[in-house]
């Protein structure tokens, strides 16, 4: 298959992802697919930090929360239209990521994992804190209005939010693909695989580590903002430590050092818990755990690597 062929297939896939659900999916299914896109962006942010950058972050949920609250606060208190909150959420979470990327320079491996974990634990409580309560709504959270389709498009809010979220998602996925193929991406992977050699080659470790953290936070934050717009509600309980762990699961299951893996991971974390619940109401957690283990057993490198291995075999057979 040639490069232009696969690009054509990709475009076809994106168009199908946009059109098919609009025609066939119910409002509820569209809502789920919207969440898939939001989570896919967040997992993508995590893939950049962990999969490409080799830095273990367990606190990606904190960036998701910052993005979600940035969007919610701008919409609620400043009457900013929903679409305009995304660039702000991107900048804010990117800055937070950069600021947190600084300690990431000094801490490696498990220590960084612990620090980011602490961040994810702290965020829900900080959101309830009195000083910010006027902005965050405290434990009550903030209820948001669902955006209507603009320009009199014949779409209901669910359809519009899905299309809007998907468009943003596609743009950011293309951006991420270019990013990992660029000098920055190559430098990142070099640092991940051979930090000493990379440094000797003139790659500035500190600069790239910080940058990764910033970019990772940015993607996750935009995902959070889109998620908040789709759900129409933010509160501290929405962003507990479980969210960070869910994103972590999405990353590993999807395939950590892969762009498309983020989509598989997001599909997994949105649909598999519901599937587990269908199988047994009494022990959904245990069922989910078993499915997780099965996946790790049969697709140890994540779904993305399983698929690309199949693809290679298919091509070799031809």
């Amino acid at each position, binding site marked *: 298959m040639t490069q232009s062929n696969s690009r054509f297939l990709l475009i076809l896939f994106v168009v199908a992802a946009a059109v098919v659900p609009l025609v066939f999916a119910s409002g509820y299914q569209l809502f789920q697919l919207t969440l898939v896109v939001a989570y896919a962006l967040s997992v993508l942010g995590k893939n950049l930090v962990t999969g490409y950058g080799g830095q273990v972050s367990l606190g990606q949920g904190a960036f998701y929360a910052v993005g979600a609250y940035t969007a919610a606060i701008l919409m609620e208190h400043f009457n900013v239209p929903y679409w305009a909150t995304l660039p702000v959420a991107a900048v804010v979470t990117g800055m937070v990521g950069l600021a947190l990327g600084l300690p990431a320079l000094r801490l490696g491996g498990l220590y960084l994992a612990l620090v980011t974990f602490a961040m994810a634990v702290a965020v829900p409580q900080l959101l309830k804190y009195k000083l910010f309560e006027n902005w965050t709504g405290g*434990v*009550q959270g903030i209820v948001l209005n669902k955006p209507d389709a603009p320009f009199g498009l014949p779409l209901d809010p669910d359809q519009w939010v899905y299309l809007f979220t998907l468009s943003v998602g596609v743009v950011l996925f293309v951006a991420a693909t270019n990013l990992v193929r660029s000098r920055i991406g190559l430098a990142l992977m070099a640092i991940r695989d051979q930090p000493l050699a990379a440094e000797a080659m003139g790659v500035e470790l500190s600069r790239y580590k910080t940058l990764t953290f910033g970019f990772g936070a940015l993607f996750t934050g935009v995902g959070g903002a889109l998620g908040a717009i789709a759900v129409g*509600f933010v509160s501290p309980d929405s962003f507990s430590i479980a969210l960070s762990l869910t994103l972590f699961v999405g990353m590993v299951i999807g395939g950590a050092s892969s762009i498309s893996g983020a989509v598989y991971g997001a599909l997994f974390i949105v649909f598999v818990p519901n599937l587990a*619940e269908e199988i047994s109401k009494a022990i959904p957690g245990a069922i989910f755990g078993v499915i997780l283990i099965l996946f790790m057993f049969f697709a140890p490198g994540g779904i993305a690597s399983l698929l690309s291995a199949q693809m290679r075999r298919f091509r070799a057979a031809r």
Partner: protein
Amino acid sequence: MKRRTVLAGIGAGLAMPHIRPAEAATVVGVTKTEIKIGHTIPYSGNASSYGVIGKSHSAYFKMINDQGGINGRKVNFISLDDAYNPAKTVEQVRRLVEQDKVALLFNVLGTPTNSAIHRYVNQRKVPHLFLSTGADKWANPKDFPWTIGWQPSYHTEGQIYARYIQQAKPGAKAALIYQNDDFGKDYLNGLKDALKDDFNKVFIKVLTYEATDATIDSQVVSLKESGADTLVSACIPKFSAQLIRKAYDIGWKPLHCMSNVSASVGATINPAGPEKAVGVISSQYLKDHSDPDWKNDAGMNEWRAFMAKYIPEGDINDAGYVFAYGAVQSMVQTLKQCGDDLSRENIMKQAANLKHEVGVLLPGISVSTGPTDFHPIKQMQLTRWTGTTWERFGGVLASS
């Protein structure tokens, strides 16, 4: 088509709005043999201990179905896990409403989770009945006519303490400490509503704390120094335990009314020291399985028989089962009253037109609602810690 027919058609179209009934009835999730009821609760995650309530409801509706259903209809009860995550609640409730097409939502658990769907269910006009949360905001029939709570709200409890203080200690100099959030503010507002202009006369000191604080010892000292002889506390167990211990240690012995959220022996009284809590007053509305007074009580025996037959593995000491058994009675009563008209409008109308007894509620406490009264339970009975147990005293007190 002839022009005349077209004109007649237009004429009829214009006339239509006048001959249509004022309110079109919406019937969803109901067939001749079945009614679908939706529910979400945390079966997993931090708050999964509440899951017993959902388990109990499923078992209860199974019993109802074994007995032939309600007005000949079986109940199809769909209970989903939301892990106490509001985003997940939105997803699951949308599934229930849009995909499973339930007639109504019953007893959805949690304040943040219900907040997340509050506007959605009211826009969609889905009955959102007998919620499992004590916040007062569910009783707002003017702005949210499709939502109604069940248990006494924290606001109601605050009013009851105000009434008791007025009766038991006229001329009291009272102090209040509350957690600075929805939960605590409901008590503040309850006290203010009951006392009206007298609030500032009765309460000489009002302090708050944050749920994130490490300790409230300094607040307790200032409360004592204010010279108050009466105390109302709206705190979660951790802080109630600190409050009881610190007040005792610095020799302050006010008449102490404590939120029933903290009435747990295991979480509050034992950490504080059972002897230091003697005399603390709280309140109840449900019968307690371990209370010897209800050993041979008909209402509790009915519940025990249900537990033995349908949830034999359940922990009989878990008060969640008693709560669930009470709340589901209001649901069944509402559906019975609906008869064959199970439109969403009529379901809501009947939910706001209840007057019935519940065997697991304390004697004298009953469920009553009205078109402007969305507080199904408005009465509680006070209890006093004796050093070994909670002892009920006085009659049943009402909020209004």
